[in-house]
């Protein structure tokens, strides 16, 4: 059975997208990427000093890992910031892909959904292939699709919280309303079981960063996340049993010995 995943016409084999921030060291980052084997890693753009040039080493490391980059607009709070960042990223990384973040609140880092839709429209019209970091709101999702997005990335929980899937109902609803749109749960994942649960809801992929980078053993948990996502996908495709209230014996009743 062909279970291919496609983002903007590109076939993707791994349903784990991995972030590259906050690892204890570049070596641990490289080892975690090798253990998780994502097809896609997220990256950002930050100020570079002419003398120190910290970004050049990082870029060399990432290119050596062989994954496709998905640049983000992390830290952008306005449409203008996000659009300008995306333009710079397209040139530096050589890709029309952009993980679009327009952040509206400092505590939750939740999306400013109004700015998100506006920026998505501007960027889509300029040829970008937008991966919007959004909420599970159905109306926002519809507007993002109208704006030109062909992928949606709803949160599981606020960035870096590790809480997992805070609103399973909303995620189920989003999945049901947009059955043909590639949907990636992005943010808030903490444990492999969270990732598996999202996959069992029928989500197409998971994007996570803090759950690996800040774990006690990032390499071990990176591998575990990859396994959990595969397991969750199979668990979804294989048609799991529905829950029921009343017990039904699994062992046949006929042929029981009688000891009366």
């Amino acid at each position, binding site marked *: 059975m062909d279970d291919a995943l496609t983002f903007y016409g590109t076939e993707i084999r791994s349903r784990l997208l991995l*972030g*590259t*921030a*906050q*690892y204890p060291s570049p070596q641990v*980052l490289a080892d975690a990427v090798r253990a998780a084997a994502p097809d896609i890693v*997220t*990256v*950002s*753009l*930050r*100020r*570079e*000093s*002419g*003398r120190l*040039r*910290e*970004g*050049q080493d*990082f*870029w060399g490391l*990432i290119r050596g890992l062989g994954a496709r980059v998905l*640049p*983000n607009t*992390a830290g952008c709070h306005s449409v*203008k910031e996000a659009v*300008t960042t995306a*333009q*710079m*990223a397209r*040139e*530096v*990384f050589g890709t029309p892909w952009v993980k679009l973040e327009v952040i509206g609140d400092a505590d939750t880092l939740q999306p400013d959904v109004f700015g998100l839709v506006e920026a998505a429209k501007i960027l889509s019209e300029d040829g970008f292939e937008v991966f919007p970091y959004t909420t599970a709101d159905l109306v926002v999702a519809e507007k993002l699709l109208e704006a030109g997005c062909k992928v949606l990335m709803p949160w599981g929980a606020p*960035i*870096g919280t590790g809480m997992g899937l805070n609103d399973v109902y909303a995620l189920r609803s989003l999945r049901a309303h947009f059955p043909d749109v590639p949907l990636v749960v992005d943010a808030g994942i903490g444990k492999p079981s969270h990732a598996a649960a999202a996959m069992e809801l029928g989500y197409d992929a998971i994007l996570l*960063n*803090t759950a690996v980078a800040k774990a006690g053993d990032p390499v071990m948990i990176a591998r575990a996340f990859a396994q959990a996502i595969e397991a969750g996908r199979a668990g979804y495709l294989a048609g799991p049993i529905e829950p029921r209230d009343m017990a039904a014996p699994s062992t046949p009743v006929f042929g029981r010995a009688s000891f009366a």
Partner: protein
Amino acid sequence: MRLIVNGASLDVQAETLSGALAALDYGDAIVATAVNGAFVPASARRDRRLEDGDRIEIVAPRQGG
């Protein structure tokens, strides 16, 4: 001229954006640039003249989630 480069006020001996990058030792570093909040493609740096007080952002690939 006085330029605000990555948030810091600097005295830079340059007339153009490409000249400013050279003066600031960026050499062949892989970076993207914006002037006064607007993206300036690499191909346009040579022709982009700068004025006193211009705000320059010079960014490079970094870790991100």
